[in-house]
């Protein structure tokens, strides 16, 4: 076992920056009036960005802040989405029940999986998560009567309020801001700071009486919950689900988003998600070889910019906030 690296203590502002509220409110207002000025295709694209950004931020909650090697986060995204679709198709419950149930189901299954996973460390944690996640995927992929199998479920109808694209846009926008706000408060709460302490120095955290497993499990379940929210929003936008939502390569894609934006920053994953969604759309128009482009971007990132775009900017500006070195050292075998 390698010796524990000495790392800087987490710099945290004791008070949440009130000055940050103004730009956030301004951004919200701009995005609120945006659909009136842009073509509907861009409204769709923005909605997809909010959903993907929420998914990436939820992954970063347990990956960047909790230090968990979460290799299969998309499972909870898919579970949220499938809960809505299955409630709509297989039960007589009203659709909004499905919308509310989605995140809860994701969190509940996340709790069961997490309960086993947090007993393991590092690479073993990631591998158990991969095994459990692929287990869920195979069940969804093969259980035709219940999940629609590899065809998925298509053609769901939404309640009138969110039936139009604009309605869906507003719902997604509001939920996105609320969820990110909640996660931001959590990260800066005593719980969040303790969580970061368990990531930075598990041995010392344990010796001062922190229950590491409990904190890790909590971050795991919270992340699963918000991934479920993103999955629900995805169904509202697309009205269909397919097993590809919870295949492991989807999880890898979300990991890339976190890395691209910067895992040591709160808004980095959102930026990464926006970049990946926009790039895949723009490049996808010109070539069918989008993956090779993404692969090269990923190579460059890992080799030259491991702190991500936002992480790099923060370093250059030297504001000193954010979590230094969150992306280092997950794994102590």
């Amino acid at each position, binding site marked *: 076992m390698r010796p524990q690296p000495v790392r800087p203590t987490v710099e945290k502002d004791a008070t949440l920056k009130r000055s940050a509220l103004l730009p956030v409110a301004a951004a919200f207002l701009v995005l609120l009036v945006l659909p009136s000025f842009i073509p509907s295709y861009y409204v769709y694209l923005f909605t997809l960005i909010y959903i993907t950004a929420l998914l990436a931020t939820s992954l970063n909650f347990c990956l960047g802040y909790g230090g968990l090697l979460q290799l299969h986060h998309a499972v909870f995204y898919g579970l949220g989405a499938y809960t809505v679709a299955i409630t709509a198709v297989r039960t007589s419950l009203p659709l909004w029940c499905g919308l509310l149930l989605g995140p809860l189901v994701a969190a509940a299954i996340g709790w069961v999986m997490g309960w086993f996973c947090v007993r393991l460390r*590092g690479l073993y944690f990631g*591998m158990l998560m991969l095994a459990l996640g692929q287990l869920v995927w195979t069940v969804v992929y093969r259980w035709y009567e219940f999940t629609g199998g590899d065809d998925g479920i298509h053609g769901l109808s939404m309640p009138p309020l969110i039936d139009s694209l604009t309605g869906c846009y507003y719902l997604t926008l509001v939920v996105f801001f609320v969820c990110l706000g909640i996660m931001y408060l959590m990260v800066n709460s005593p719980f969040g700071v303790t969580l970061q302490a368990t990531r930075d120095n598990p041995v010392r955290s344990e010796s001062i009486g922190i229950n590491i497993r409990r904190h890790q499990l909590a971050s795991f379940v919270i992340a699963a919950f918000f991934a479920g929210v993103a999955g629900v929003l995805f169904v509202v936008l697309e009205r269909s689900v397919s097993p590809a939502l919870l295949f492991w390569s989807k999880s890898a894609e979300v990991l890339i988003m976190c890395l691209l934006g910067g895992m040591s920053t709160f808004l980095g994953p959102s930026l990464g998600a926006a970049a990946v969604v926009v790039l895949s759309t723009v490049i996808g128009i010109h070539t069918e070889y989008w993956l090779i482009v993404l*692969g090269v971007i*990923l190579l460059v990132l*890992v080799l030259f910019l491991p702190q991500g775009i936002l992480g790099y900017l923060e370093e250059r500006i030297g504001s000193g906030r954010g979590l230094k070195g969150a992306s280092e050292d997950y794994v102590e075998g």
Partner: protein
Amino acid sequence: MPGAPARQKTARCPRSIGEDAGDMDLSAIGSQLLVGLSRSMILFIISSGLSLVLGVLRVPNFAHGSLYMLGAFTAFTVATALGGGPGGFWWAVALAPLVVAGICLLVERGLLQAIYHREHLMQMLLTYALVLIFSDLVKLIWGVEYKSLMPPPALTGAFTFLGTSFPRYSLFLLIVGPLVAVALWLFLNRTRLGKICRATATDREMVDALGINSKWVFAAVFVLGGWLAGLGGVFMAPTVNIVLGMDHSIIISAFLIVVVGGLGNVWGALVSALIFGVGESFGVLFWPRFAIVFPFLIAAVLLIIRPSGLLKSVW
């Protein structure tokens, strides 16, 4: 998309078979066992390479599945270039893994050697970048159509033993698998380079201190790992469709086999490959539709009850 290979679906047994065990079709069990064992052998060949790389280089190489896919596609090209004659398969066995090994040398010297000191997440993401690049390169070179590779005439068809027919190719794999295992054992225990590999896996700094250039040990191990992945690809090719996406379907299984067996322990990989292959083929026997669930279920249960692997990990 991933799934049980088509040839595994041959045994169609009702779910109720477990309830009246007295009527259980012994020949079905026998042939299913053989199919499972032969699949285990391919899984072992592939995951032993992954295990070596993980043990010595400490890099979780997600591109291992891509190397396997490259092996299968190269085998197709080699066999086709030679006119598709009966010797094509043997030439593919000889050449395709070497091509993959050559690619590995470039990858190791060009990219991997830059990230040995980095954390696992970064190593995984770098190798995942290779997964993306290789999959599009394969699409660029070979297109998206299904390819197939015929086994040589001597290995096609079936032979009958005790009233049950067994595919010849499965028997061939049952001979090749142990041969590879023995060769690996001889390499790791009887050659100087093999001993250095094991020493590097256990204590890299000590090996450096003894004046051995571990740089080239790493390169050699990665090349060997890639050669094994390519070999697995060639041997798998006659039993499945050679198609884009075969990398995605094998890599998770290979990783789980390696982790369940004990990180970096080649014999652990053998044990868990046997568990996986036989487990999956008996899954086909008892519950055909959910057979592909079994490997993941087995892996999850084994990881929960033995969190650090069945056999001793070298980490």
